[in-house]
Structures are given as structure tokens and as C-alpha cells.
């Protein structure tokens, strides 16, 4: 027989699709690809539902990448939060590649969402991202690859932070010391998983990252903090993610239709988050989120000292209706008094 070109291409593609062990999961088409793994839609026969399976890419399937993917699964499993995709299962393919099974999420990436949304809606999404990242920091985890394409906005408004493939467990002392009281994770969350890959995880103090040697640069240019870009994993902490959040904020606001210039307080927020020196940034994602909330509520933000006329203008805009009502009342009252005087 002769295989037509279309059939041959199709066969090559379907045979390249990984095959999980057993017959519980059947992989369908790829739905996304990152630097380390490919995500496939899959059928879960046992529970009769669609799931997503992330499989290590064949061209990067070395021991280090396998460790990373396994770490990612374990980190995600520890971070139970509405903004983080839940992991259901982890395993190894017949060809030795690591995979994990997670909830199948559908939605738009942040940059696409931002194209048709109002500025306040976009800011609320960024705020939710700050909350999720702050939660991870409270559990000793730094994402290290925050960018618009790693944020998904679902059809029902859910906001998910994706691709924790190069996340680093740095310990609660470094990841979230400045997140304030009340964010301490339960002790169980800090237990080291039984993976050799996570042997360096610790509840306090700096922990060596067994898969990121000094000098290794992982991340995305434009969204990567200087200390990360310089390959200094020892300096990575919550403020590294604050930089990424600032870069996201700048990217989505700068991409607003019509190229409107951002208000100075908003630009000051991302400028502070993007400070080259970690100490000059917001100490935590929560603090950055708090400033975004203040901006949304037309309150003064900590990153920007307003001149008097700007403050007056902001107060006027915030209380516009009440001020107009009072002024109208006073005007009518004065008119009434004047008429009585005559």
C-alpha cells in the first residue's frame, strides 16, 4: 500500500501523541505548549470527564526537565487556591517521560482578554493574580515566570495563574516574610514532598534549588527581574514575582486600545514594582495588590505623591455626584436667600 502524504502526516502526529500507562486516560489534541511541556486535552474514562495532561516535551526530556515537571506537579498539588489549577494525578509514560493530570481549563490569555475589556476589569484581573501569587508566596513558592500568556481568564471570570514549571520553593522566610500576618500556611503545606527533587525544600530560610544552579537563567525576557536575569537564584524571593507582576501591569495597560496614556499613579505603581533593586519594590504581591485596589477606589496610592491639584481632581472625580449635589443645594439656598433679601 502507499500512504498518501496527508495520512502519513496525520499518523506521525497521532503517534507522536504520548500514551499514558493503563487505559484510564486517552490523549486527544494538544491545547498548549510551554518551554518544558505540552498540554493535551484528554479523556478520563474512570470519571467520564475531560482533563488536561501536561507531558514533558520529547526534545527537552532529560533528567533535569523530568525533575522540574515532577516538582511543578507537587508544587501545584500543595497550592490549593481558586487561582491555581488543581492537579489530580502524576505518573510516568511508557517512554519514561513524566506527566501530570490536571483540571482542563478553558479561557482567554490575559493579553487577549485585555484587548476587549475596560481598564478597571483588567486591573481587577491583575489584582486577582496578585492575590494568587501572594498565596503562593505565603506557602514558600515563587513563580518566576509571570507574564500575560501565563494568566488565563475563564468564561465565568475565574483568573488562573498557569505554568509553574520553573517555580522555586524558597521557604516561607524568604517568599512571604512581608506578606503580613494571617497568611501563614498550615504546617502541612511546608512538608517536603517525598521527591528527591524537593529535598532542599525547607520551612524557613533559604533553601537550595536542586535544579537551578547559579548562573542558570530561566524566565522570560521583559518579565524577568534583574536578579533572575543575572542567574542569581540565591537572590530570588517574593519581590522577584513583584517585578513580574509589575511587568504584566505595564504590558496590559500599555496595550489598551487607542494607546491611551496611563494615569500617573498607575504608571507609578508599575514603576515601583519594576525597580531594578528588590528593596525598592513593593515588599510583597499583597502590597502591590493593595496599591492597585487603592487606585481602583480612587484613593491615593503609596507609589505616588500627588500634587495638590491632582489630589483635588481625584477627590472631585470620586465624589463628583455628592459635590455637585451639595454645590447645587448651596446655590439654590443662596439664590433663595438673595430673593428673600430683595
Amino acid at each position, binding site marked *: 500500500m*502507499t500512504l498518501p502524504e*496527508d495520512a502519513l502526516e496525520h*499518523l506521525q502526529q497521532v*503517534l507522536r501523541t504520548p500514551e499514558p500507562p493503563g487505559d484510564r486516560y486517552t490523549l486527544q489534541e494538544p491545547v498548549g505548549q510551554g518551554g518544558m511541556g505540552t498540554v493535551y486535552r484528554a479523556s478520563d474514562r474512570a470519571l467520564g470527564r475531560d482533563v488536561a495532561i501536561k507531558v514533558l516535551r*520529547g526534545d527537552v*526530556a532529560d533528567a533535569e526537565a523530568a525533575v522540574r515537571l515532577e516538582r511543578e506537579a507537587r508544587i501545584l498539588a500543595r497550592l490549593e487556591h481558586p487561582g491555581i489549577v488543581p492537579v489530580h494525578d502524576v505518573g510516568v509514560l511508557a517512554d519514561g517521560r513524566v506527566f501530570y493530570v490536571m483540571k482542563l481549563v478553558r479561557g482567554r490569555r490575559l493579553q487577549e482578554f485585555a484587548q476587549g475589556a475596560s481598564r478597571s476589569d483588567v486591573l481587577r484581573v491583575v489584582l486577582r493574580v496578585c492575590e494568587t501569587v501572594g498565596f503562593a508566596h505565603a506557602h514558600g513558592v515563587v513563580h518566576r515566570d509571570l507574564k500575560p500568556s501565563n494568566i488565563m481568564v475563564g468564561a465565568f471570570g475565574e483568573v488562573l495563574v498557569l505554568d509553574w514549571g520553573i517555580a522555586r520553593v524558597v521557604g516561607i522566610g524568604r517568599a512571604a516574610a512581608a506578606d503580613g500576618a494571617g497568611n501563614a500556611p498550615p504546617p502541612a503545606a511546608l512538608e517536603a514532598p517525598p521527591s528527591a527533587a524537593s529535598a532542599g525544600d525547607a520551612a524557613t530560610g533559604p533553601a537550595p534549588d536542586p535544579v537551578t544552579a547559579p548562573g542558570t537563567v530561566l524566565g522570560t525576557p521583559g518579565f524577568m527581574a534583574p536578579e533572575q536575569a543575572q542567574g542569581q537564584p540565591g537572590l530570588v524571593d517574593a519581590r522577584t514575582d513583584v517585578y513580574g507582576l509589575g511587568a504584566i501591569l505595564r504590558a496590559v495597560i500599555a496595550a489598551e486600545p487607542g494607546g491611551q496614556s496611563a494615569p500617573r499613579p498607575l504608571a507609578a505603581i508599575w514603576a515601583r514594582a519594576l525597580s531594578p533593586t528588590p528593596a525598592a519594590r513593593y515588599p510583597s504581591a499583597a502590597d502591590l495588590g493593595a496599591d492597585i485596589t487603592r487606585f481602583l477606589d480612587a484613593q491615593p496610592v503609596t507609589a505616588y505623591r500627588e500634587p495638590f491639584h491632582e489630589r483635588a481632581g481625584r477627590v472631585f472625580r470620586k465624589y463628583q455626584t455628592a459635590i455637585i449635589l451639595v454645590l447645587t443645594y448651596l446655590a439654590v439656598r443662596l439664590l433663595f436667600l438673595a430673593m428673600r433679601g430683595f
Partner: protein
Amino acid sequence: MPQHSGRTGDRAFPTTRRSVVEATRDENADVRRAAFEALVSAYWRSVYSHLRTKWRAQPADAEDLAQEFFARAMARGFFDAYDPERARFRTFLRTCLDRFATNARRNERRLKRGGGAVALPLDFAGAERDLTASGAGAAPEMESDAWFDREWVRSLFAEAVEALRAECAGTPREIRFQVFERHDLARAETARPSYRALGEELGLPVTQVTNHLAWARRELRRLVLEQLRALSGSDAEFRAEAEDLFGVRIP
């Protein structure tokens, strides 16, 4: 020179994991012949397309040269010199072919059709049709190596599909192959039915369609790898070829 059916599916592929490349040097003549047939089956399309694209041979000349090449390769032990440490067998075979074609051109020896060698009843007309349809005949000479490899992959998959067909024929698994054939072997993407349409056509629930497809693909992958292993000159070559084909490393 053994007669070859020219149909890639009706000859059982060596089931042993021993390399057929290695078997071409076996002391037993029957083993050598069987191994050689396997090589002809896997490579004749590549050889033909290479002669047409790189050497710009006319169809009739390419057909004659391909037959002569295989006949001489067996009679004179072309492949005895293969060293798995130095190159993939596929690369070595292509080098042998280029040397053979160079000599044929230099000697201005154009074999008359049917002269000299025992004719292999291979489907050259079909290969020519596919070559024309693919546009390979008009491709730049520098791309001919890629066409050689592409035809080799096509032969590998075609062999595996035929082996799968044979495995299912006359058994309850026949419906699985039917689903696979209707879906995965569709001549064009537009002709590929949806799972639902295929289920309705064959009277199967969609879940059964996907189950059958998953089984057939799993089997096909196994058969392709089995044949790849047999056609590789060494274990390292097999792993490298499998990685290229499937994008994964074989543990």
C-alpha cells in the same frame, strides 16, 4: 536475487528483534535473503525517488537503476562494509546509492529495461504517481536527501499499517482496524470523519470509536518501533531514529 512481491504488506516482517542489517551478513543464505528482502521492501521507494530527484533519472532509467542497485548490493555485499559506529544505516545506504549512480553515469551505462538484473516486481508506477503528486520531481536537488528520508518513513509506516491490518484480519479486532482505516488513513484532512459521524456510520458509540482508535494507534506505534528496531544497524541508531520519528527518547 529473490523475487519480491512488491506489495509491502503480504510479507511477514522479521519478528525477531535482531537487526536485518546485521542479518544481511549472516552465514545462512536463507537468513541473508530474508533480511535483504526486508531492506528492499523498506528502501525501494526511497531509492527510486532519490534517483529521480537527485540524479534526475527518467522514470524508466530510475526503475532500472533501482533494480540494478539492489541486485548488485546483494550479489557484491555492498552492505557488508557498514559500520554502525560511523553512520546510520540509512545514510550509509544513500551513500552507496550515490556511488553506484555516479559510476553508472560515468560509465554511461544505461541499462536496458529488463536487461541484466532479475526484475523486482515493485510498484514503480505507483511510486512515480506519488512522486509527481508530491512535487518532489521538481524539487531542488539539495532537497533530494529529505525526499529519500521521507520515502523511507512512508515505507516504514506503510509496512506497519499492513502488519496491523494482517493482525486484525479475520478476528474480532477487524472493527478496530476499520475504525482506524476510516479515520486515520483518510486521504485528506477534509475527508476525515468526526468521531460522531464515524460512530453513526459503523453503528458504534463515540466512546467505542475513540477506544478502538486508541488501541489501533498503540499497536501501530509498537509495530513501527518493532520494524524500526529491525531496520537499524545498532541500538543507538534505533534510539536516535525513534527520537526523530516520535520526538521521544526510548528508555
